[in-house]
Every structure is written in structure tokens, then in C-alpha cells.
């Protein structure tokens, strides 16, 4: 059981507000996407969950226990940060051993097999790893940690297409074997949509959405066609974005689509397309 509850969390750095009264729940055993534009507060939130910084207001609970100064709870989280915390002269194989010291559940065999597949050489020193391979090292550590909660912060930074593919497959395969709670914080939404079950969306430090991906996609749709017809359809409806090209117009809506809606869309001769998560994200965070 690893349910994370974020309750009314606020954080400011001087006059800059990083998080504004954020409340959300991350369900046990699900892959949850933490999405937001640069500076939306994703990393601040993750740092509060993992007790690296303190919230000004509010609390984070894991299985009903506050996470602050709670070593037992913190020991169940493995957090892949953007920063590298190991001394530069440490070899990859030594990093594995050190990690095993901190996280008894760390799977050395799995780490070795992953290194092999990613062609990460265990003898190499951290200082000699490229940006991509530093990311790979951190991915291997996080995957092999076998922690009940794993958190990935921008997991594919600097990875080529093949390595990204390998990571996504490995993530799903490992999750399938041991369905732990996974948080994927990223701005590469298109790539991760299918991996996710739930989504938390932040905008300028405020909570925008906390929902299953399916429900979001069910609510979002785009109608397009003649400008006047689109306007006639969209009047008094929740429109999240519009685009015009001459007399052609498209509007993306975010609301329940009823049979009456479908009928009206067809009567007005409009085209109907479901929206993608990426579109919803762009519309809502603009």
C-alpha cells in the first residue's frame, strides 16, 4: 500500500509562489503522470513529497502518515532527481553497491542486466559519462530500486529514440511484474500518454487536474468547420482553445458530450475529433 495524499500544500521562495494550495491523491499501484510546463512547480512538489524541502502550508501523507522527518516512509520512496549526487570519481558498479547499502530492496542482478541492455559500462567513472548515460545510470538505479514508490523527474533527458523506447518498455515490464506506485514527471506528454493511468496537471503552482487519463480524454473534443457554425455550437459551452484560419475555425471543448451535442454537431455540418492529452494540456496551460 502506497497511497500519496497531498493536502493544501503551498510553498513560496521569497516573493515567488511555487505551489498554491495543491491538493491531490496519487493512488496505490498506479502510474501517475505529473505534468506541467517549465516552472509549474513539479519539482517543488516532488521535493516536498521526498522531504528535501518543507511546505509553508499543508502536508503530504503516505498511507495516512505525514512524510516530514519520517525515515520509515522516506525509505519506501526512490526519487530519480535531475541532479547527480554521487562523487565524480565513483564507478558505476560502486554506485550500485552504495545504493544497495541505502536501499536493501535494490536488485543488483536486475541493475546488471539493465546496464547490459543499455550498454552502460559498470567500470566507467561518473565523470566520464555523457549526459545521456548519466540519465541512463539514474534510470537503472530507479528501476532496480524496487521501492514501493518510484519517482522519475524528466526521465528521458538526453536519451536517443532507441534508449527512450527501451526505457518505456522496461518501465512497463517491471511495473507489470511488481505494480508499485510510479510518478512520471515530464513535459514530454505525447510520449508518455499511453503509459499513464492517472494525471496530475499543474499550472503556475496551482492544481489544474487530478484525474484518470481516460476521463480527461472522454471530456475533451474538437469541433471544426465554418466559423459561424462553430460559434453557434460553442456558445455557452466550456471552450478551452480556439483556432481560426480564415473562415475555418476549430474549438476544443472540455465537457460531457451528450447525444444532443452529437446531433447538433452533425446538423451544423461540423467535424468532430477527440482531443489528445497533449492538446488538452496545451489548451489548459496556455
Amino acid at each position, binding site marked *: 500500500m502506497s497511497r500519496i495524499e497531498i493536502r493544501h500544500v503551498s510553498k513560496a521562495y521569497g516573493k515567488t509562489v511555487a505551489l498554491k494550495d495543491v491538493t491531490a491523491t496519487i493512488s496505490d499501484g*498506479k*502510474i501517475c503522470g505529473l505534468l506541467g510546463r517549465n516552472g509549474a512547480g513539479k519539482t517543488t512538489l516532488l521535493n516536498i513529497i521526498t522531504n528535501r524541502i518543507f511546505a509553508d502550508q499543508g502536508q503530504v501523507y503516505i498511507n495516512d502518515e505525514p512524510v516530514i522527518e519520517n525515515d520509515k516512509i522516506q525509505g519506501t520512496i526512490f526519487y530519480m532527481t535531475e541532479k547527480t549526487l554521487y562523487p565524480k570519481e565513483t564507478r558505476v558498479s560502486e554506485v550500485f553497491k552504495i545504493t544497495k547499502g541505502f536501499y536493501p530492496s535494490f536488485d543488483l542482478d536486475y541493475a546488471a542486466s539493465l546496464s547490459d541492455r543499455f550498454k552502460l559500462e559498470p567500470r566507467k567513472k561518473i565523470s566520464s559519462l555523457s549526459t545521456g548515460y548519466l540519465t541512463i545510470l539514474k534510470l537503472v538505479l530507479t528501476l532496480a530500486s524496487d521501492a514501493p514508490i518510484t519517482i522519475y523527474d524528466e526521465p528521458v533527458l538526453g536519451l536517443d529514440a532507441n534508449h527512450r*523506447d527501451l526505457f*518505456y*518498455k522496461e518501465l*512497463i*515490464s517491471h*511495473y*507489470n511484474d511488481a*505494480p508499485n506506485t510510479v510518478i512520471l514527471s515530464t513535459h514530454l506528454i*505525447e510520449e508518455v500518454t*499511453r*503509459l*499513464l*493511468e492517472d494525471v496530475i496537471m499543474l499550472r503556475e503552482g496551482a492544481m489544474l487536474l487530478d484525474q484518470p487519463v*481516460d476521463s480527461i*480524454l*472522454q471530456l475533451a473534443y474538437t469541433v471544426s468547420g465554418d466559423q459561424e457554425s462553430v460559434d453557434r455550437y460553442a456558445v455557452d459551452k466550456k471552450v478551452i482553445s480556439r483556432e481560426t484560419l480564415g473562415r475555418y475555425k476549430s474549438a476544443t471543448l472540455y465537457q460531457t458530450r451528450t447525444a444532443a451535442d452529437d446531433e447538433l454537431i452533425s446538423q451544423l455540418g461540423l467535424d468532430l*475529433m*477527440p482531443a*489528445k492529452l497533449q492538446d488538452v494540456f496545451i489548451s489548459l496551460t496556455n
Partner: protein
Amino acid sequence: MQLDAENEKPIFIQLAESIEDNILKGIYPEETQIPSTTEVAVTLKINPATVNRGVNLLVDDGIIYKKRGVGMFVCQGAHEKIMAKHKQAFYQNFLLPILEEAKNLGLSREEISQMLNSSTKIEPAEGRISNEPH
């Protein structure tokens, strides 16, 4: 199995349809095992919960069945069931869009019939379509 990001249908439905298509084409014959949820999830990089939703659609429709601890198999008679289902959906999914496009192009019923009758893709004995309006 191919899923299309641009496709308008939800991923779990696309997945179910893709398995159905493979059964129709004989790639997954009746009473043989189909790939496991894990294999599908990993290969296509989809959340396993989504794969389960798609698979359960097919189980509910009597297209595939699960054998505990063994895997998933294509039901006896699945081929026929899928054919019946696709025939039912043919008007909605294929004919209707064609007719709408024909309307945009101003094609008459006669012109469409003529195209159908001269097409070598349908067998004349079964596929003959009357020029008379119904």
C-alpha cells in the same frame, strides 16, 4: 498489432479491434493462444490496465477466454461472431462516411451504383447492387 496515435478511438478499443482483425485474418486462429497482457503492454508501451480493459471487452463479447495461469485463447466461433459484428457496423463505419463524401462531391445515387457495379473488388453474383432506388 498497430495502434494509431491519430486515431480518434480510445486506445483500449483500438487494441480490441486490432486483436479482432488478427483473428479475422487468421493470424490468431480459434482455440489458439494469443499474446499475454504483459507482452502486449510491453511491446506497445501501454499501461497494463489499458490492455486489460481492451481484453475484457473481447472476453465479454465471447471472442476470447482466459485460462487461469495459462493465458488467453481465441474462442470457438469467434471468427463468425466478429464477422457478424463487422457486418453490422459496416453501414455506420464505412458506407455512411462514403455517402457523406459523395454528398459533398454531388455524386448521384446512380453514379455511386455504377462505380460499385463496375468494381472488380466485389463478386458480381453476391455483390450486385440494384440501380433502382429503394
